[in-house]
């Protein structure tokens, strides 16, 4: 794939209505420009759909369809099946927020992966239902203030921890699942390109800061995303056929406070002793993720061949067949 001119595709044009500093808009532009206009894009309901297709206007210069909130992966399954029977190889890409991925869209996504559709599913994860006004989602991290997990006398924000969706997705024994952020473009680019070389269901979870919901300066979106990685709260990993095949290691671990301080959604944690307890919880979560993925350890062993072989021996998805046929 020659990507020298990738940013000239302009699949997602300017003039759309995203907020300034929108991480999702940045991520969607990066992804769609890398993939290009020769693809069919299916969008779940959410910010991206609303700010790009407002009232008979469209910012998309590629075929694009939105149906409802929960069914993007199923619509993509149908599009891909139609292309397959017609003998076409147009790439099919789903774009959804964390609501359309972690929560309301999870069932269709699971079905799409289980059936082995040749679709790239991209989740722009901004860790709450931003489109409806910052309500908590299954992706919202522990102790975050949202409009439905407000801190108060008996609350320090969201009680539960962020759903580990990448592990849930990878557990489908699928060809490729990875996390990325808008802060490391070369990493994101490599992952999109890799995903586009692989047949079958693929999944990218891209951390996309939301200045409105995270309550940070809109100029800080990229640096906030970088801090999520550097503190260990959002590990950048790749999983192939359920096995961990790549992590972005950290030269050093930054304390979570550096990530939390610039964001108003964590402000209440710095106000009292109860908040201080939650800060320790968040640090412990970061430590656990660093330990789990070996982010401070030696080089990760890439073992793609073994993973691919186990898949072929295990059940042999049709995407393998079609690669040759």
């Amino acid at each position: 794939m020659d990507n020298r001119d990738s940013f000239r595709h302009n699949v997602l044009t300017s003039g759309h209505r995203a907020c300034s500093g929108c991480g999702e808009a940045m991520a969607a532009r990066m992804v769609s420009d890398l993939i290009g206009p020769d693809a069919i894009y299916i969008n779940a309901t959410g910010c991206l759909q609303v700010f790009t297709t407002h009232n008979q206007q469209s910012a998309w210069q590629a075929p694009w369809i939105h149906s409802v909130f929960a069914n993007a992966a199923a619509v993509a399954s149908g599009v891909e099946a139609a292309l397959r029977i017609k003998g076409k190889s147009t790439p099919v890409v789903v774009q959804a927020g964390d609501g359309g991925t972690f929560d309301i869209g999870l069932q269709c996504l699971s079905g799409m992966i289980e059936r082995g559709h040749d679709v790239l599913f991209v989740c722009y994860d901004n860790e709450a239902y931003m489109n409806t006004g910052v309500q908590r989602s299954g992706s919202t991290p522990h102790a975050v203030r949202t409009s439905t997990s407000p801190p108060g006398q008996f609350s320090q924000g969201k009680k539960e921890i962020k759903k580990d969706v990448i592990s849930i997705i990878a557990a489908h024994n699928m060809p490729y699942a990875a996390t990325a952020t808008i802060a490391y473009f070369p990493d994101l680019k490599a992952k999109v390109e890799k995903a586009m070389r692989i047949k079958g269901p693929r999944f990218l979870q891209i951390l996309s800061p939301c200045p409105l919901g995270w309550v940070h300066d809109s100029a800080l979106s990229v640096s906030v995303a970088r801090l999520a990685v550097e503190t260990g709260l959002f590990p950048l990993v790749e999983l192939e056929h359920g096995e961990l095949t790549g992590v972005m290691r950290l030269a050093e671990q930054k304390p979570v406070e550096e990530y939390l301080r610039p964001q108003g959604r964590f402000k209440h944690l710095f106000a009292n002793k109860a908040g201080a307890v939650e800060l320790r919880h968040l640090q412990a979560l970061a430590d656990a993720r660093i330990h789990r993925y070996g982010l401070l350890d030696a080089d990760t062993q890439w073992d793609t061949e073994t993973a691919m072989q186990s898949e072929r021996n295990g059940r042999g998805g049709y995407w393998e067949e079609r690669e040759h046929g």
Partner: protein
Amino acid sequence: MCQPQVVAAYPITPQTHIIERLAQHVADGELKAEFINAESEFGAASIVLGAVAAGARSFTATASQGLLLMTEVLYNIAGLRLPVVMVCANRAVGAPINIFSDHQDSMSVRDAGWVQLYVETNQEAVDTLIQAYRIAEACGLPVMVCMDGFLLTHTFEPVDLPTQAMVDNFLPSFQFSRTLDPTRPMTLGGASEADNFQEYRAAQQSAMEDAAPVIEAFDAEFNEQFGRSHGGLLQPYQLDGAETVLLGMGSLMGAVCDVVDKLRDQGQAVGALRLRCFRPFPVQALVEHLGGAKRIIVLEKAISIGAGGIVAAELRAALHQAGIMTPVESVIGGLGGRDLTPDVIEALFQESSINEVGTTFQFAPDHVSLPQKNMEATNNG
């Protein structure tokens, strides 16, 4: 026959062997299609939505809870003006859970923007599906072919299957003008606001109104080519000189026609009218057929709880607007698979349901004969 290229479904009684047989056709290579086992009916409807948007003729089938699980997508398919065709194997809606036939499922989604055709026999189901694709693709509307669960889906009867050449001659290959295609990029399903949303709805309404003559024309054309007509919008039976007309939908009309025959033999001026097309609601055709009737009895297998008979209410509105003040007796029966026997239907004819002011409908008596039922009531009282 119709050569769908994508079939997606989630099994639910009594729809199951429709999709099981299609899966076998695909497995045997008799049907060149992608058969997609959806993770739910919501997914199945979404898959055919995507497949049709990508230009492939598609098929799904469901019933009851499954149809209601599709509801959000049904509206969306219609709003996107995608010519999806599906079969609803009509079944009751829980609770209490009940797998047997009535029309509550499809009647509950009557406002979704789908053409709804209710068939009486398995032959009509075959023929109507062929017509349905033609209607859907000509009108840019999704079509739901409603066939009674078990009463039709699980009943064996001889069916004349037309040859593929005949079907191909009647039904041209699917060419979708708004296909998702990178050479002609289009945005489908973008957001709309107050300044144009109503126009989208008005366009749907207008397309639905325009579909009525198309449904009639295609049935007539089908008759020319296949030698069978199913009435288009309505199928009258013994309406000449009929003072009382029994009106209903679906397989129950076989028994109704038997009762009409019996009563005609007894010298009663009675006829029947089968409503084949419920959406679009054929107001004009109904007025034409019922203008001379002195008594109209609507027998239907669904209820709008808190209001009563759905077809009856719409028929009253249609007649009223045409200045026809003939009372419409509304009877609800056959719910959850209960038999609507000729005895029951005859009893409806014999006893007027218009008794008290304020009564807009009644439930049909059950399948025991009336004298016996009265006796039981006396014994219990």
